[in-house]
């Protein structure tokens, strides 16, 4: 269970995030949506104790993340390329993360077997360091690395961005698999409303740092989100005549 209590983050007097209360039960696949600057990455960074909260706190399975480091063994994340070590090959990177999580080389090799389809033959056995891979392939490595060692909490920031269409479908399948594991909580953020509604059991919409919607996903969710995000534009369009 992840608990967010009175959490806020201010930069030079600018409130970028302010969440009174948010609880994510174990096993949930949780989606975060919002426009740029809504505070998605800020929230994830606070969950990972990469930035300091201005007030309030985050508890990850009863561990307050900015007070203790005991959340690290069961939490994994991929936020951006600063989670990759550029001068390693993908295999070396997986072994490195594996070793940190108590897996030896053989364990990691076995683990990677399941992701061969996801890598689509472009990652393993190549002659490239991570820094020389394309953005999409880097992302694949980062996401899979976050799955190593059976973490109980997985945080992925915009995992679908930069991925090719086939890989997006494969990733959706991978994330959906976690639905069968009641112990694993997955948190993802995305700009792709279709993808999040498809994989997430619950979706929270952030706007200007505040939660404005908290939806248990159903058939109607996609429509609801689309209406929410297009409202402004539609009302604008009604006022300004479109010139052809």
């Amino acid at each position: 269970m992840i608990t967010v209590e009175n959490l806020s983050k201010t930069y030079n007097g600018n409130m970028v995030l302010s969440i009174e209360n948010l609880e994510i039960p174990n096993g949930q696949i949780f989606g975060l949506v919002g426009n740029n600057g809504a505070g998605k990455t800020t929230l994830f960074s606070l969950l990972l104790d990469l930035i300091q909260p201005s007030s309030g706190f985050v508890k990850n399975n009863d561990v307050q993340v900015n007070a203790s480091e005991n959340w690290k063994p069961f939490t994994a994340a991929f936020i951006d390329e600063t989670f990759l070590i550029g001068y390693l090959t993908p295999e070396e990177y997986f072994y490195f993360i594996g070793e940190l999580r108590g897996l030896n080389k053989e364990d990691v090799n076995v683990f990677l077997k399941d992701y061969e389809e996801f890598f689509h033959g472009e990652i393993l056995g190549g002659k490239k360091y991570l820094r020389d891979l394309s953005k999409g392939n880097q992302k694949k490595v980062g996401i899979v690395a976050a799955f190593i060692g059976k973490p109980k909490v997985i945080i992925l920031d915009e995992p679908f961005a930069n991925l090719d269409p086939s890989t997006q479908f494969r990733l959706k399948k991978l994330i959906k698999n976690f639905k069968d594991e009641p112990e694993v909580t997955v948190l993802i953020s995305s700009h792709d409303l279709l993808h999040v509604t498809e994989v997430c059991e619950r979706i929270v919409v952030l706007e200007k740092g505040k939660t404005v919607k908290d939806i248990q996903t159903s058939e109607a969710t996609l429509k609801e989100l689309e209406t929410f995000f297009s409202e402004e534009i539609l009302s604008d369009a009604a006022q300004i005549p479109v010139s052809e």
Partner: protein
Amino acid sequence: MLKHFFSLQWKSFFRSASFSTNLGMKILMGFIALYLIATFSILGGAAYYLIEEKLQLNALEVVSRILIYYLVGDLLFRYMLQKMPVVNIKPLLYLPFKKGKIVHFSLWKTVFSFFNIIHAFFFVPFCVVLISNGYEPLQVITWFLGIYMLLYCNNFINIFLNGVNAFLGVVFGCIIILGTLQYYGIFDITLYTGPVFQLFYGVPYTVLAPILLLIVLYYVAFSYFRKNLYLDAGLASKHQEAKAEDLDWLNRFGSISVFLKNDIKLIKRNKRSKTSVFMSFLFIFYGLLFFTGALEVYQGAPWRIFAAIFVTGGFLFSFGQFVPSWDSAYYPLMMSQNIRYRDYLNAKWWLLVMATIVTTILATFYIYYGWEVYLAIVVGAIYNIGVNSHMVLWGGAYVKTPIDLTTNKKAFGDAQAFNAKTLLLMLPKLVLPVLLYAAGHYTVCPFLGYLLVVLTGILGFAFKEKVFNKIEKVYKTEKYKTLAAYKQKN
């Protein structure tokens, strides 16, 4: 159109992160530039009198002879430090500029680089002195022109050399071989090259040769870049072919082996760290200044221990003081992964210890200068391992400059690395052992001096855990600031 180029250039210079960071840095950069300019000018002005009056030689002839080394050295420095400003070209490609213009602009930009201007500060005073001492003005000017054209040729040659990895080794090898041959009087290349350079004075119109060479090089460079002005050709960054490594033999180090393996890959696969290792290799020879009696000021006995600390501590200082900045590119990963600071620190510490032992072994050639000299070096190594290894890590914890592993920028020191805390930590690193040795040396005998330093080194081990606790605390309290600082690239 040129106006746009210049305004872009202007902004990129004054808005660069390194320039706008802090006032102290600007002042320091200014001082370094002034210092270099002053040394070059004084050297240029004084060279004539030094050579003519002290050595009773012909100044023009001597300078002409040394020139071959000067030129090669210049090329070497350029190769290591001067970069073709490729990155700034990319955004221009999509804009309505003629390609030729972009290339001309980029090439001309290098003409005004510091690496070209600095030589004027030596050669102009030198030539002025020559003329005032009765040398033919016109011929001195053609000589000056000839030399400067050759320096500019270096500028364009360097553009082609960028990315030719073997260059450094080959040139260094040549210099060492030629230098040794010359030192022992077997073969003196300057006897042959000196007169060639002197031709620019003796036969003024020969200056046309380097001018022609320069023009040719410029156009070769121009057409080369014009042809390769594509993202996947000349503008592509070079990709090394990756070679996976196991380094399983390091597993014997237990829980820290995972970091050790990573560190070794870090050092091997990145330009910046390779430069650091190369520099620490040069440090080994620093002792020659002291032990050969080359410089009189360094003859005092306490200097021995000072030299010894540097000979064996090159890697310690050049690598150690930037822990954890080496990992700055992926610091968020390190901070959210399942990592114990203690293991992380221990790994770096072992790396420093191993490097110190290796350099001590490499430094065995100092036995040539007597067993006592090597004893001093071993004593220095013990002090480095016992005290300095954790002192540099402590100092490093306060350094928050991100390191871009893929370039050599700032490899030769970073003003931000010098804050009050790191300076304070310099005291036990360098001053204390020298004082200890001096205390023993002047009261009883040199061996008591060595003994005192060794004992302090061994005593240092006892405080290792204490210092590590302290560093761990610094890491924790400074974590958010460090993360934020590392985010600001270049």
